[in-house]
């Protein structure tokens, strides 16, 4: 259904031509009009010349999933005309650059084609070639402002903010936006039947991407050492951390840094740096994606086996191998849950949006230090790199980092002997000391067999004691990881289980299914190991669907393995082509399953 403040449109452009700023200008303008909005950037793994799209969905009801249908396509990349025309829903609109004769590919009986000579107008108006190319994007933003009734005072205010005193750029952008706006107003049916009208539904929200949010969380958690190796789609996380540290962590007098960021030679080194810093007592982290996690496996096992805290932000992308670096997936679940060789199991937490990235970043550092183990924050490209509309972040100034069991010199005085891996409390967590502490606090970290005193051993009993303690420790984290979020609809016997960025689409699908007479409950898992709530949810429902973005149903398999369910007791809905999930995929899959089951 499309209508006032409830529709979607997308722009098909060429990567590297400056369309990103025009697209984010449009999205932000809608947000500032008080209308809930979502933007998805679908970009190629290159710098210049390949096709790229930007999808914007406005939803008066606040739905933020990727749209199932597109009402208007702006086709500015001739090489994708065929695909772009196809993407328009029946009865929708196509806007193209009419500077050149219309391509036969653009013809479709059931849509309305609108033309604006963006290229020609820019060539006539601007002298520099670069301006003619870049400002064509601002011109289409202007035409869309007219077609969709975007408030021009908001748009022009944003241009003023963005270009400030750069008078030439400011003037050129104002000219370009008016080129498109005035042409559309004079020649096209403005506004279209679906368009925008001011609301007041975004005043308590912000627009932020998940990588920025995770970085901000790391700053607030008190992380001081960051090590990384550049990789899409995780790179921006450390860049944001650096920029926040430059803002908040530079001594005002000496200009010296209260942080250390090391760009490592590879992911192996990044993991080593993080573990060395964790051992030394710093809150340290790395940001990476699937290929990086593969390389870090050896060190992850070392940290697990030697009880060293470390935080890994894994911004997942399409695998295996190099896969599709700029497409989203949730296919690292196995490699995170049981990373490294031997018997291992790790704490993994799953944010669903940037606000949770912020909050869970802080939780990750607390969990890592409390449980003295690697902790993974598994987001994905959709969360990490797209701007999301989320509630403003909040902070409680009474928060203090949970450093876990650390014995300082004073505490060491009170005990007869310090044994690094002695489980005094029965929770599997032994007290640690930090290097530099004197007295009896020194011990030897070794990845080879060691006993509870940290001494080398190949004795079976000592080994069993150690690995069983580690199992007890990690299993004990099940109720410390973020609890699942459950949304219920009256009378539902169908349960949908999902994870991470699928959340928005699944919750919307649940509303649609419920409205259609098939009430469903939704549980979003936020932590691994799974808590008892997860088991209960599965047993409470006659039929359970697990919705995730990977080929092999990794979440469903983990649920089956860890909780003892038969794999076929749950049905999979899998969407792993690399695009953010849409509600339609879920609705259709559930509906077709129910039809099949009743037939």
């Amino acid at each position, binding site marked *: 259904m499309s209508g006032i403040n409830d529709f979607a449109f997308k722009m098909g452009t060429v990567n590297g031509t400056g369309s990103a700023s025009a697209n984010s200008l449009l999205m932000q303008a809608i947000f500032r009009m008080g209308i809930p909005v979502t933007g998805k950037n679908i970009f190629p793994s290159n710098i210049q010349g390949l096709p790229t799209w930007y999808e914007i969905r406005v939803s008066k009801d606040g739905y933020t999933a990727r749209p199932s249908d597109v009402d208007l396509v702006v086709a500015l990349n001739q090489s994708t005309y065929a695909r772009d025309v196809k993407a328009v829903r029946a009865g929708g609109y196509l806007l193209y650059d009419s500077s050149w004769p219309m391509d036969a590919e653009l013809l479709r009986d059931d849509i309305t084609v609108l033309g604006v000579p963006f290229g020609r107008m820019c060539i006539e108006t601007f002298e520099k070639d670069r301006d003619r190319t870049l400002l064509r994007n601002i011109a289409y933003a202007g035409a869309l402002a007219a077609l969709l009734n975007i408030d021009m005072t908001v748009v022009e205010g944003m241009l003023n903010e963005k270009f400030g005193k750069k008078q030439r750029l400011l003037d050129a952008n104002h000219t370009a936006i008016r080129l498109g706006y005035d042409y559309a107003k004079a020649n096209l049916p403005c506004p279209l039947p679906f368009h925008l009208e001011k609301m007041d539904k975004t005043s308590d929200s*912000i627009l932020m991407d998940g990588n920025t949010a995770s970085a901000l969380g790391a700053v*607030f958690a008190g992380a001081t050492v960051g090590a990384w190796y550049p990789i899409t789609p995780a790179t921006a996380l450390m860049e944001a951390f650096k920029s926040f540290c430059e803002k908040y962590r530079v001594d005002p007098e000496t200009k010296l840094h*209260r942080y*250390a960021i090391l760009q490592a030679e590879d992911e192996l*080194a990044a993991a080593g*740096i993080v573990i060395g810093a964790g*051992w030394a007592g*710093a809150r340290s982290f790395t940001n990476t994606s699937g290929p990086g996690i593969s390389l870090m496996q050896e060190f992850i096992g070392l940290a697990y086996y030697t009880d060293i805290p470390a935080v890994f932000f894994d911004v997942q992308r399409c695998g295996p191998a190099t896969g599709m670096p700029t497409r989203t997936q949730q296919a690292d679940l196995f490699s995170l849950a049981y990373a490294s060789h031997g018997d291992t199991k790790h704490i993994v937490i799953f944010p669903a949006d940037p606000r949770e990235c912020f909050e869970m970043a802080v939780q990750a550092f607390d969990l890592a230090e409390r449980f003295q183990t690697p902790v993974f924050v598994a987001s994905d490209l959709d969360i990490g790199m797209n701007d999301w509309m989320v509630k403003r*972040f909040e902070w*409680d100034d009474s928060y203090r980092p949970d450093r876990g069991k650390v014995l300082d010199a004073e505490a060491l005085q009170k005990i007869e002997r310090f044994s690094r891996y002695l489980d005094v409390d029965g929770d599997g967590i032994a007290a640690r000391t930090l290097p530099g502490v004197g007295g009896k606090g020194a011990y030897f970290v070794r990845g080879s067999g060691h006993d509870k005193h940290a001494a080398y051993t190949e004795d079976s009993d000592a080994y069993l004691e150690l690995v069983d303690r580690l199992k007890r420790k990690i299993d004990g984290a099940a109720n410390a990881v973020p609890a699942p979020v459950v949304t219920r609809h009256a009378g539902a016997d169908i349960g949908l289980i999902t994870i991470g960025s699928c959340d928005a689409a699944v919750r919307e699908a649940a509303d649609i299914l419920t409205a259609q007479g098939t009430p469903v409950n939704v549980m979003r898992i936020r932590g691994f190991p799974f808590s008892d709530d997860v088991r209960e949810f599965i047993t409470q429902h006659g039929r359970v669907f697990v919705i995730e973005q990977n080929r092999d149903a990794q979440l469903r398999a983990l649920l089956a393995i860890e909780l003892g369910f038969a794999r076929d007791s749950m049905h999979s809905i899998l969407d792993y082509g690399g695009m953010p999930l849409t509600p339609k995929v879920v609705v259709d899959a559930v509906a077709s399953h129910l039809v099949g089951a009743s037939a």
Partner: protein
Amino acid sequence: MTSIAKPPVRHKSSRTNGLGLTIRDYEGAMSTLCAGCGHDSVTAALIQAAWEMDLEPHRVGKMSGIGCSSKTTAYFMKQSHGFNSVHGRMPSVTSGAAAANRALTYIGISGDGDSLSIGLGQLSHAIRRNVNMLYVLENNGVYGLTKGQFSASADIGSLSKKGEPNEQSPIDPILLALTLGATFAARSFSGDKKQLVPILKAAIAHHGFAIVDVISPCVSFNDHEGSTKSYAHTRDQSVETVIADYLPGDFVPLTREITVSDTEEEIRVVQLHDGGSVRLRATAPDYDPTNRESAYTHVRQCQQRGEIATGLLYVDEEQGREMHDMLRTVPEPLIEVPYEQLCPGRAALDALMERYR
């Protein structure tokens, strides 16, 4: 078993250092290496150096990777904090620890397999990063723990225990370090404690990454005729290019004083960051241990003659900027910065939120 403890017996007449500790206080567990292993002599030299320098044991991080060499960390300074990491990855773990706590002294022990094959990348980048640490490379040209394969430092033509010649060209850690911009590069021989101890002391005192390549023969797999890393070959072919002595700022040296020079002009004094100094005397009249290019050429020429140039071959204390200088970090260890100075707080967050509207 690296955990075998030595009996804590202290002889009444034992000399004590500035901290009141005897040399026994700097020992570690009993060595489990083969009798006669060169690495045990390196251990002894490290113990001597640390004791003479009054290093507080608990303020030392002993770091290593995997292999015979990496076991060394267990055999000295039992009151220090130790870390056996994974094969070839000691440099990154040390980089992280040093980033977090710059106030400790980091002593990394590695071998030629650990450093020059699996860990070559990490060694190279620790040099580039100029981590403030001593990096001892116990170099025997062979994989001892897996029973005798050639390592990347084996010379062409050097024979294995089974008599097979090595065909591949060696990686020389000193030439590597000089090429990559290391600010301290020394070579010594485990059988020459007199030379090794002052070098280790100068290396520990150096502000930045100090590599000390120690030819440390493997008695089990590489101490035979035809090996170029045997005791006999190393003794015969080593050429002491630079005689070095470390002098603490306010201390009369305990080790060998350089008194053999004919004229004072031949002795160069390099001021170290810790207030001490290192006195250098080159045996070749035109050798300049502060000139990277001529040092490189000299080491290369010795190598071509089948000789092993030893001593403190290169030192650059003045231009050396260690990792923290490049990172512009605060002088105190990051782990000691109070949380209140790390967290911007609620008011800052509220203000920041406006930027995302």
